[in-house]
């Protein structure tokens, strides 16, 4: 797929600036997102290729404006919703609850 993810050789994105003493996770939730991979990979039975393709299909503006682990979250939602393990309605309800200050 000739999508926005395929950034190799593209111009105009500026230099790569490595962060000094970069933490493993920028935010605590990223550690939880990382852990979700092994657990959902085992019980939902997807492949890393299907997971990557879910990221490639993100709307381009969202892809460029979101972090590495946000890409992962999008992919989890896509592969789990496709299998009926979660529904889009459940996800929307969860987001609404979190936006309302729930946990």
């Amino acid at each position, binding site marked *: 797929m000739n999508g926005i993810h395929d950034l*190799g*050789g593209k111009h105009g994105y500026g230099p790569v600036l490595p962060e000094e003493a970069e933490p493993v996770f920028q935010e605590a939730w990223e550690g939880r997102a990382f852990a979700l991979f*092994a657990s959902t*990979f*085992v*019980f939902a039975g997807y492949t890393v*290729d299907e997971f*990557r393709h879910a990221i*490639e299909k993100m709307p381009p503006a969202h892809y460029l404006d979101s972090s590495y682990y946000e890409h992962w979250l999008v992919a989890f939602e896509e592969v789990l919703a496709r299998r009926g393990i979660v529904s889009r309605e459940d996800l929307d309800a969860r987001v609404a609850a979190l936006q309302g200050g729930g946990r």
Partner: protein
Amino acid sequence: MLLTPEILPAVLATGASARVASEVPARFRVGDRVRVRHHDPLTHTRLPAYLRGKLGTVEKDHGVFAFPDTRAHGLGEQPQHCYSLRFGARELWGPAAPECDSLRADVFDDYLDLA
């Protein structure tokens, strides 16, 4: 299947490796000059766009792996060799690139033709 403490070491040891034990003949050998196909599917591929149509040299045969292009869509593993190819910087980026620079990329058998 649930991820439990009992199976965790096995999952971590094998990871999500796509290496396959099948005996599949390699279409290319180390030292071969190969041309990357103009492979541009609407579906998943592990071929970066900047390698399409480029000329490279096989430097290493990594062995046999499941093919991401089919496996991403539930179309089977189509096990095949994956090679480390060397591309000159000028082949990829044009005459302004330094002559001494090169890039190595892992490329699947199905993306290639003998040059």
